[in-house]
């Protein structure tokens, strides 16, 4: 019972997917070129990857860059909105906890 990418082979828009590989907190995760980092994480079965100031889990909410719920660290860049950043092959994504900032 998770978010799911329409499989490229059966998609009516006839995608010709190119696979990419990322790591999330060191774990390998596979995705499709063109997906946002949020799209990769959701399709990989992760619905949450951040904790709020109260320690509660958060993932994607607004999906268009307005709410900042989905921010992650990509390589050396902190606070990247996962819903707006395209995933690139080899991206090293790290999850963030808001409580750590204080």
């Amino acid at each position: 019972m998770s978010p799911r990418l329409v499989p490229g082979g059966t998609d009516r828009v006839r995608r010709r997917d190119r696979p990419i590989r990322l790591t999330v907190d060191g774990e390998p995760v596979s995705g499709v070129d063109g997906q946002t980092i949020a799209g990769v994480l959701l399709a990989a079965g992760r619905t949450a990857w951040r904790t709020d100031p109260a320690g509660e889990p958060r993932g994607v909410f607004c999906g268009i860059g307005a709410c900042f719920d989905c921010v992650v660290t990509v390589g050396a860049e902190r606070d990247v909105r996962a819903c707006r950043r395209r995933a690139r092959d080899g991206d090293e994504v790290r999850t963030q906890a808001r409580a750590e900032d204080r």
Partner: protein
Amino acid sequence: MTRVVIVGAGPAGLAAADAALRAGAGVSLLDAAEQPGGQYHRMLPAAFRAELPDKIQHGRRAFDRRRRRVLDHPRCTWLPETSVWSLELRDGEPPLVHALRGVADGADRESVTLVPDALVLATGAHDRVLPFPGWTLPGVFTAGAAQALAKGERLAVGENVVVSGTGPFLLPVAASLSQVDARVLAVFEANQPRTVLRGWTRDAGELVPHLKKAGELAGYAAGQLRQRVPYRMGRAVVEARGDGRVEEVVVARLRADWSIIPGTGRTLAADAVCVGHGFTAQLELPVAAGCDLAGDAVLVDAGQRTSRPGVFAAGEITGIAGAPSAVDSGTVAGWLAAGGDPARITGALRRRDRGRAFGRRLARAHPIGGGWTGWLRPDTVICRCEAVDHACLNRALAAPVTAGARSVKLATRAGLGPCQGRICGPAVAELSAAAGAEVARPHHRPIAQPIRLGELANLRTEENP
């Protein structure tokens, strides 16, 4: 040659660019996304290499023609992945536009400054979502997020999905979810049939020109029926529950004012819920430009001119009325910003007026009922960024020392998080008003988009690329 700078390449901004080019201007068209289209014509990423992208786009052909005409035009400079972070005011002229070019939230984006003879703001809107218990659980999405992920990435946010809120936009969201093979259990429209019908049909003579839009809505409704998605009115998701993610939602029947009819709550198992209670216009840039507002929209005259010299506004920031209306207001704004003769766009002016009437009707048919505050519990989070709950906000609103809008913000931190009150702002304003406290003026954000301190320190100005 007049240089028209247009911020936002959705339906309004793209139409403005098209019209300004026709009127002979040079155009710089900026958008934060990689491709034009905005939220409405969200395109699949090129990297998906889709052979049949038209299969999922609504009204795609006219949009495609306009997109090519604009982007291929020799007088048009298209600036994708460009975020405007600041407007610098000038006397008697439109402000300078400071922007960053590069991947979203990247660390070493290129800074650009544009010097407009006329500025068209077409920054659009995002979903408004009222707080309710459990709305911070993963698996609760805005309706727009579900739409963006389905249309833009071919991703279903869940397998068994509930759509809830108000307004005609809920139907295309349900349709998009079906297209990515999610099962839409039901669409819940919070308003009563009576409210919706009366809102749409008052001054019925006005309705005829809206037939195209009505036909579009009927098309969605028919699609819904074919797919057997129940559409229930006078009901809403008033709570989401689950252990670390959504597992079930509570749906209750509502009175006309959106207060819950006691004893009507029932639970429904679902792994995602998509919620939209109308839209919030993205007014940061109009406010930064010093434009007067009219309620929740930018105040514009018959020529889409704002109160500031050389600054025009178009689309959802001038009143929520949907994409077709946005196109007409964009055409008017772009044409006049380029110095075009108004006598040559009488058709667009007339359609724009009808669009405005449509927007007024939409607001009447799908109002937000004040009774939603009764859905809240003391521990319901209001400000998502700072996890400020209803009890905390109420304490600040009740204390005479902290009841001022600024004090409420500082005492509770509601609105001080990364989103800068974009999401909780309207809810905090409504709760403040209900408590008899001062209401903050929204949208005042001197830095409109996040910029890294390193980028700020290294600003190199390149004018009019």
